């Protein structure tokens, strides 16, 4: 166990359990670095990273940028709005032009599933997937599992419920793959319209009752209702969703178990998660954000190595 087995970080499916453990142990070291007064190490000082975001992002983009800067890499940012993409340039052309300016690694978010894998086949640079459509978001899954490991000391044997919009969620899919590789049990919970057909074939439990999911799990990862993707109505109203699937203090007290609450952000407060849960001691939402930088530093470091 000394090097990561993949050239790119595109999908959790490509990673072995040893790869994930290596990323975690490296992230432990970087977490120590980012908690020092001088939060920076010179490892990637001769590397240039392009952050190419064809979709909006605050957290992931900031997190990657901070991770790159704390490794002393040079960083260029690109977002599709206001670029030549609107003039009809293809993805490969756009990226090849950026690489012609001597860029070594590409971090990309794109609305099409498979865009990162396609890019990795067509260019020389190393590619990190920062989210490709509803397919995968590997660094989010890694930081989620890392946060669980930090809280419980292990992931194996734990029960994790993923609650909410599973259909549109790349976070859900990457989380399922990652948690299963590490030996956790996974349940998905949401309205029928927001669960993909045949999701049970991935070996997960399926529930349509949030009480059942909360009573079963040790960790509840609550996903955002993606309001921007709701042109098609998947449920009658937000209020009805909140009544049936929203997690609040009263519900948790009724269940009476000490459940750890996670959320990949951004939270729709009062929709899928109430403030009195999100801001409580049960929630590790801000730990997830902190760990995100350490995990991304580990991913960048190990791929560049």
């Amino acid at each position: 166990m000394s090097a990561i087995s993949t050239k790119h970080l595109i999908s959790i499916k490509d990673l072995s359990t040893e790869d994930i453990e290596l990323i975690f142990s490296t992230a432990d070291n970087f977490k120590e670095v980012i908690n020092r007064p001088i939060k920076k190490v010179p490892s990637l000082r001769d590397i240039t990273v392009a952050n190419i975001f064809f979709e909006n992002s605050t957290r992931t983009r900031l997190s990657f940028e901070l991770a790159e800067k704390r490794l002393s890499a040079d960083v260029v940012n690109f977002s599709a709005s206001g670029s030549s993409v609107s003039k009809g340039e293809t993805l490969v052309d756009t990226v090849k032009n950026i690489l012609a300016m001597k860029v070594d690694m590409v971090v990309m978010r794109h609305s099409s599933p498979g865009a990162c894998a396609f890019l990795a086949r067509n260019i020389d640079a190393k590619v990190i997937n920062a989210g490709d459509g509803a397919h995968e978001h590997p660094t989010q899954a890694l930081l989620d599992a890392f946060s669980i490991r930090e809280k419980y000391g292990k992931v194996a044997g734990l029960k994790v419920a993923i609650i909410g919009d599973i259909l549109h969620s790349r976070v859900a899919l990457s989380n399922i793959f990652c948690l299963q590789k590490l030996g956790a049990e996974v349940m998905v919970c949401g309205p029928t319209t927001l669960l993909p057909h045949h999701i049970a074939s991935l070996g997960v439990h399926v529930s349509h009752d949030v009480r059942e999911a909360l009573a079963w799990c040790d960790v509840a990862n609550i996903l955002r209702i993606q309001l921007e993707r709701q042109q098609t109505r998947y449920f009658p109203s937000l209020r009805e969703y909140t009544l049936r699937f929203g997690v609040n203090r009263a519900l948790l007290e009724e269940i009476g178990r000490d459940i750890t609450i996670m959320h990949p952000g951004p939270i729709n407060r009062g929709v899928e998660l109430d403030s009195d849960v999100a801001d409580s001691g049960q929630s590790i939402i801000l730990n997830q954000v902190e760990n995100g930088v350490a995990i991304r530093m580990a991913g960048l470091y190990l791929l560049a190595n």
Partner: protein
Amino acid sequence: MNTTRRLIIPAAQLRITLERLAAQLLERHGDFSNTVLIGLQPRGSLLAARLHQLIQEQSHQTILFGKLDATFYRDDFRRGKEPLIPNSNHIDFSIEGKHVILVDDVLYTGRTVRAGLDALLDFGRPEKVELLVLVERLYTQEIPIHPDYVGRKVNTMPGEKVVVSWSETEGEDNIWIISQ
């Protein structure tokens, strides 16, 4: 490929050398209240732990001891065949204004120590830094780094490697030259 290994310092002699190094540190520092020992990970930490124990036993003082990993500061990242995998840092005290004795087992090119100094300075500004090595390989330094305390000076051929083994990890204390 034929690998031969030659014992250059057996356990009994190594013990005398360690005691001498501990005595030199005690002689130069006396009061260790502002002096800390920091071993370079991974192999220098084992040596630093031994010296730490010896000095504490002889001086009846509690001495601060840390482990420093310089992997992220190395200048051969992406240039070697093997990937560089980091070790952990354990420095649970401030080095600001302290007299730091940086400890490593073998001084070869000096590049690890250079990285160690950079890593150390990211933890604060020590008043003074001294370098202690168990083995100094002669005429092999590539940058101007010279130790303040030396266990043994050893003349080596190109292609040879000096390995210090410890009873904690390898079962016995001694120093070998390995040639290929």
